[in-house]
């Protein structure tokens, strides 16, 4: 530690610290996943945070920036692009707040670091509509406060400040069950908060073991599961060209000028970064020209050129999708959904691009952005169709030139109801109002098996039990699908509804389906029952009641 007798946190050190965080979170993210309060197979918080952090350090690995502000800015941007799930999005806002706090600084003294950690937590609070205590937000705030307290001593060293932040986080995590009833019931601590604790601990470990090589630290990094964001849109006449991506390393790079020049050569242009390091993304017919142009500014790194025409043709052929006539209102539709049958249903209703994802596979902001950019309309309505995807979806509008409206659908039935209400001859505002009102009208019943013993919403649930959720809330547990569904229908007041649509999941057998149908019909003879092959994972049955 001698060489760092009085070190500030500069670019290289912060970079190392983040790589240490990644390594530590990567080793322990399954632990985070296990902290699932709900007995349903849920968006895995640990995986979501890990993928978000991976995206945060992705660009940093290529950067030799000396200033902490530049590394922080890259982390902020990378985490935002890769944010998945609620905790991932909040993490990206923490990075954003940190980057703002250290703007213009080449290195941080202990007090500045502590202040930046506090500001990071404040930024995260501001980003969330209704901040809830007992979550990652509380943990971020307590970490910042502990760091500030430690930094107030004139002898404070950097490792002491980070150690205080990590300890503050740990203490806050342990207190989360006393703040949130659902955690207390389930007997767990908050997963997102624990993830943040691991990130701070990872930084601390790095500071303590600075002699280990970065390569070694990152060697155990698992490969991120791919989330396909296939899109099915008509092939434009000029073709898709090549998706061209690279980083430009140089000095005093003029982002606006580069952007203007790149825009003349293609579409879906993204030029972001710093005067020293710029990330460029463009869909172009002439990648050579783009590369020549960019090469004039500096050294090109991570150059990647993909033939999108081939990719798209392959996807389109395999799905037999044909183009449709352009809509008079110029509004496109993008939906997040998983399961073959559900994908077909959404496509059949006129959705232009599907982002594969949902309950356990939360797509990133980038996945949604890619789908939106692929749609041949400048105005797009995005339907997350899952409560765990909403927050990531809400980041998208700020990241594209297209006008994106996020319609906050919490479930597949809400998404279907909303799309049915969409009309291609009506302006977006009118469509949104109609879609929102239809989505709110429909009731959702989800049926699955408890993945662990727990207590939630006053119900004692044993692993393997059939459980029924009404509008995201666990309401009934039992041993039989029909029994649980009929209880749920009874609670909703089946008499005031007309139609039940049963979306059959991948794991439901023919016999189970038949039995469920006849159980519903015999108990609620006034309801029409329609069965659709949903093909969704984890939920043997999703029911739409309207």
């Amino acid at each position, binding site marked *: 530690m001698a060489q760092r007798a009085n070190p500030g946190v500069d670019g290289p050190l912060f970079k190392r610290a983040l790589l240490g965080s990644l390594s530590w979170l990567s080793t322990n993210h399954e632990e985070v996943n296990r902290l699932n309060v709900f007995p349903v197979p849920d968006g895995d918080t640990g995986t979501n945070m890990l993928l978000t952090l991976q995206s945060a350090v992705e660009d940093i690995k290529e950067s030799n920036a000396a200033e902490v502000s530049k590394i922080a800015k890259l982390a902020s941007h990378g985490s935002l692009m890769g944010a998945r799930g609620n905790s991932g999005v909040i993490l990206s806002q923490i990075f954003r707040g940190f980057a703002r706090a250290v703007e213009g600084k080449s290195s941080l003294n202990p007090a500045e670091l502590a202040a930046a950690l506090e500001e990071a937590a404040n930024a995260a609070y501001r980003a969330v509509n209704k901040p809830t205590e007992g979550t990652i937000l509380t943990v971020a705030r307590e970490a910042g406060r502990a760091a500030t307290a430690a930094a107030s001593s004139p002898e404070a060293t950097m490792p002491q400040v980070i150690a205080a932040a990590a300890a503050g986080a740990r203490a806050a995590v342990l207190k989360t069950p006393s703040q949130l009833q659902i955690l207390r019931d389930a007997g767990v601590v908050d997963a997102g908060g624990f993830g943040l604790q691991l990130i701070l601990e990872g930084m601390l470990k790095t500071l303590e073991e600075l002699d280990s090589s970065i390569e070694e630290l990152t060697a155990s990094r698992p490969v991120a599961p791919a989330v396909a964001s296939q899109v099915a849109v008509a092939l434009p006449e000029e073709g898709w060209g090549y998706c061209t991506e690279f980083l430009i390393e140089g000095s005093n790079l003029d982002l606006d000028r580069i952007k203007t020049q790149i825009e003349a050569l293609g579409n879906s242009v993204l030029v972001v970064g710093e005067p020293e390091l710029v990330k460029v993304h463009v869909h172009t017919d002439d990648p050579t020209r783009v590369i020549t142009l960019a090469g004039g500014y500096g050294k090109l790194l991570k150059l990647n050129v993909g033939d999108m025409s081939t990719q798209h043709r392959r996807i389109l052929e395999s799905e037999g999708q044909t183009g*449709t006539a352009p809509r008079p209102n110029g509004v496109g539709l993008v939906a997040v959904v998983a399961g073959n049958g559900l994908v077909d249903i959404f496509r059949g*209703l006129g959705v232009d691009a599907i982002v594969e994802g949902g309950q356990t596979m939360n797509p990133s902001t980038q996945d949604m952005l890619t789908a939106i950019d692929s749609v041949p309309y400048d105005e797009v309505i995005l339907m997350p169709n899952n409560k765990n995807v909403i927050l990531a979806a809400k980041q998208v509008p700020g990241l594209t030139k297209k006008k994106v409206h996020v319609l906050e659908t919490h479930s597949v039935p809400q998404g279907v109801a909303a799309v049915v209400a969409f009309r291609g001859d009506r302006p977006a505002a009118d469509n949104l109002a109609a879609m929102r009102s239809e989505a709110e009208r429909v009731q959702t019943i989800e049926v699955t098996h408890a993945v662990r013993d727990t207590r939630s919403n006053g119900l004692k649930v044993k692993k393997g039990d059939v459980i029924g959720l009404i509008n995201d809330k666990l309401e009934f547990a039992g041993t039989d699908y029909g029994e649980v569904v009929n209880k749920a229908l009874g609670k909703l007041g089946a008499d005031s509804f007309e*139609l039940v*649509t049963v979306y059959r999941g991948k794991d439901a057998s023919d016999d189970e389906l038949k039995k469920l149908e006849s159980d519903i019909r015999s108990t609620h003879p006034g309801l029409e029952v329609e069965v659709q092959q949903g093909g969704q994972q984890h939920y043997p049955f999703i029911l739409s009641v309207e």
Partner: protein
Amino acid sequence: MKRSFAVVTDSTADLPGDWRQRYDVEVVPLKVIFGEETFRDGVDINNDEFFARLATSSKLPTTSAPSPGEFAELYTRLAKDHDGCISIHIGAALSATAESARVGAQSVEGFRVEVIDSETVTMPMAFLCKVAAESASLDEATAAVKQRVPGCRVLALLDTLRYIEMGGRVSRAQAMIGTMLDLKPLLLVKEGGEIKAVDRVRTRSRAIPRMIEFFESDMPVEYVGVVHAQAPEDAERIAAGLRERHPDLEIPIGQIGCVLGTHTGPKALGLVYLKK
């Protein structure tokens, strides 16, 4: 005083209640064919019999226009005590009936027949018959009816797309239903017999308010009525609701006959009107 000219229509006009007698309208039946058996719409088979048979028939029936000979026969008979006739028929885009009438009329010498392609179907044709019947002369009737043809509208709520799809009149894509979900399309028959999807809904009770909403956005109207296929309560409810909101409108109720019923299927509902 008896009119000097006759008013003729076909069975797809779905004349409500006593309009046939009240306005003295001749109705030429189209045909509905179940396998080997041919029935004249409303003559050999009534609506209840038809829908009962439709429900049990494994194969969907087909329909056909009256022959020119049948028109010629009618026009010859009418020529005895009328000096001309106006013959108002289902849209030429939907059926060969108007063409058949035109050919039939040519074979009746010395009798003036004004064949009108109504460009529509069901009760707007009945309104046109009423307009014709209340005119003082054949010239006046012809002018008054032709002027109203472009304003004829049928706003139809089908309970299922199955029948109209099988009949080849509307594809799922046209009806904005490209999915396996059992959506209920709201279709509008406009001038020229063009069928356009205006909305799609998941349940019938949600569809009816939409229908009324669309209709009210298309006001003012000269005439409006409700038609139904074996759904009298729904039709009655819609008519009562409309009468309450628009006390100046009369709103008669008609039944969708066998030929149109072949394409709409049971439980179809329609708001039919003549735009002002």
